């Protein structure tokens, strides 16, 4: 029985071009740029100097404060610059640039590919390993994992949900990871279960990845308390609240977190990173990135060192096609359009999508015909058309009463609008205007 959530949602063309291609190791590039802010929270403090020689896996940024994350060198080489670079979000952020030489790893990292199922460390040690490895949510939200595992007082969690939905069109990085590293993921889940002290874990996978469902089901029996739940294909099922609703039929209250209903959600990529951190002592220095697009010569799933420039990925996938209009970091629904190919892969980069020029242009905006399709696809039950009008006319106080804060910016409204209205653009504008208003009120 495939489950799903029932309020709103859309089903864009799946376009999973790279579902059949395995993981290819991308050669270590000549230069990497590693931002010290790859996660939500405080930037890491740089602990290397220009000219320092660093080894692969060596710490170069120390997490500062409660919500922060360590940053490690993904290559061996010499630190050539420590300055601000534009990253994929378009902000100028501090980063460490390293010119690479022969790959030499920090000694205690286990590079052997053999699967280690047995978990020997006690619980506090496990959490420490996860924190040291600098793991942040790899589905794209990049919230530091060790912080998420530290549950607020009074909250109890009975289910660990693992997000293998991969509802974004085009992206297949989680899919191929589940196929090739299934048992590692299951071991990672077991570790996370021990840390959280839960006995039930469910991996939610959409049924367009039927082989991943089958593969993980065939191995799950070896692991206590882990089950696989097939899901119908529906966007945005990979969103935490929607996934909790789909699998557990529990509704996270407005403004709340999954832990309010006894669940905690992690991405499959994060589970694999936990496995590597705990069992192999390996910090988070690489990840799977789907490089895709219909015009691309060879769309592929690459294992990429963090800090590799997008240009290197595109070169490896056959070069940038002539008619490229847009390059997107992430998927087509929630990804960010890049203005330069010299931005680095970070912990949250799940894909790189090349769109042709004709796909990149938006169609002319027409009058709202009040068809209410935006309302019916909104997974949060909001009224996007109304939020747009209020944002446009600066009715900031009304906009808060319309629960603009519940919007997760999934873009279903803009996607469906037959009049091509930029609903989500205006909702973002409304959020910004509301923040501004609140700040001014605070100052007065």
């Amino acid at each position, binding site marked *: 029985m495939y489950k799903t959530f029932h309020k709103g949602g859309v089903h864009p063309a799946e376009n999973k071009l790279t579902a059949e291609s395995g993981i290819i190791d991308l050669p270590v590039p000549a230069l990497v740029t590693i931002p010290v802010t790859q996660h939500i929270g405080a930037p890491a403090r740089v602990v290397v100097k220009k000219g320092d020689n660093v080894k692969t896996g060596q710490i170069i940024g120390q997490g500062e404060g409660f919500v922060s994350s360590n940053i490690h060198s993904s290559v061996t080489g010499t630190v050539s610059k420590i300055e601000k670079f534009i990253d994929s979000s378009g902000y100028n952020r501090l980063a460490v640039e390293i010119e690479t030489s022969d790959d030499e790893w920090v000694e205690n990292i286990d590079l052997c590919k053999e699967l280690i199922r047995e978990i020997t460390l006690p619980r506090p040690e496990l959490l420490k390993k996860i924190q040291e490895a600098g793991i942040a949510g790899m589905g794209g939200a990049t919230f530091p994992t060790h912080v998420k595992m530290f549950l607020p007082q009074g909250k109890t969690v009975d289910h660990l949900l693992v997000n293998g939905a991969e509802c974004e069109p085009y992206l297949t990085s989680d899919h191929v990871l589940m196929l090739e590293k299934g048992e590692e993921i299951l071991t990672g889940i077991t570790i996370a279960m021990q840390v959280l002290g839960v006995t039930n874990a469910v991996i939610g996978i959409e049924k367009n990845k039927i082989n991943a469902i089958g593969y993980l089901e065939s191995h799950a029996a070896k692991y206590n308390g882990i089950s696989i739940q097939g899901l119908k294909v529906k966007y945005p099922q990979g969103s935490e609240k929607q996934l909790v609703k789909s699998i557990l039929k529990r509704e996270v209250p407005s403004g709340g977190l999954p832990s309010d209903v006894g669940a905690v959600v992690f991405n499959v990529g994060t589970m694999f990173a936990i496995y590597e951190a705990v069992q192999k002592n390996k910090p988070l220095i690489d990840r799977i990135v789907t490089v895709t697009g219909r015009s691309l010569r060879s769309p592929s799933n690459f294992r990429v060192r963090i800090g590799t420039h997008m240009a290197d990925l595109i070169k490896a996938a056959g070069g940038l096609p002539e008619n490229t209009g847009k390059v997107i970091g992430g998927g087509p629904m929630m990804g960010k359009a890049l203005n330069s190919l010299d931005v680095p892969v970070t912990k949250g980069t799940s894909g790189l999508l090349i769109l042709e020029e004709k796909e990149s242009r938006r169609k002319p905006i027409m*009058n709202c015909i009040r068809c209410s399709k935006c309302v019916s696809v909104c997974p*949060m039950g909001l*009224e996007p058309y109304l939020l747009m009008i209020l944002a446009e006319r600066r009715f900031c106080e009304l906009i808060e009463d319309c629960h603009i804060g519940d919007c997760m910016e999934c873009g279903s409204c803009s996607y469906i609008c037959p009049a091509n209205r930029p609903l989500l653009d205006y909702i973002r504008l409304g959020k910004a205007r509301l923040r501004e208003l609140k700040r001014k009120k605070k100052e007065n």
Partner: protein
Amino acid sequence: MLTISPSPHMHSGESVKKLMFGVIIALMPAFIVSVIYYGIGALIITVTAMLSCAIFEYLIQRFILKKQLSLTDGSALVTGMLLAFCLPANLPVWLVVLGSLIAIGIGKMSFGGLGNNPFNPALVGRVVLFVSFPVKMTSYPDPLQKWFNYTDAVTGATPLSIVKEGIRNQDSIPDIMARVPDYLDLFLGKIGGSSGEVAAIALLLGLIYMLARKIITIHIPLSIILTVTVFTGILWILDPVKYADPLFHLLSGGLLLGAIFMATDYVTSPMNPNGMWIYGIGIGIITVLIRVFGAYPEGVQFAILTMNAFVPLINKYFKPTRFGEKPINE
């Protein structure tokens, strides 16, 4: 040069034009039936209404409002077609043109064009004609005459007017029903009436098509049909000698045309399922009140226009159910 824009970077490909032509396709079964039953008259009024609605929209946008033309979106054609569907097939061309001018000029463009009009334009056109030319607007041609009969067609009563007349003469419903065409004729539309409203089966086919294409949702038609069924059902059970049965009410007059095509007009209907239920229930109740207790035999047009006026209020007070609205449920 790379294009930069905020997400999403993908569009469904849905467009106003596709939706409007979808509605026109959904109206085709009813159109074909009207041409079979009412011959060339149905063809003439439908083509006239569609053409004149399109031309008036063009002229008004071009020469009066002086703004960008939106003719290609097809909404004027839908208005024209719907207007023709609620006119008698023997209506002279000049009245059809006048109705189109009122529908487009007053009903739609005077409010700022597509998306801004509070009332269903086709119904505005029809009601103005109905009030101004009551005799011409209530002499409906009988079905299946000579194909070339147009304004010279033989006219007769509609099932609803037979019932209204009968009640006025204090006949009992069973006696009146003997004079009304049977349910099969009502279902197939072999009765007198406006050109596009008669055949229940054709209208239901259109509904199925629009639901399958996700042009509309079931909420509005269903709530209207359920309300009329329940309301007339209660009356019928209380006194079957005085009140007609629910099936008769559903199959006669403009109820299905109104519930499926008029009340579901995007611009003039509520924006979420909760509001749609209220709106549909309101239309159902007003329709039955007018049909059973009012002066006119048919009340759908006034019911829809009345509830159109309430749509802004409904949108304000009946909000969609939000995700996570309730505190915590297990």
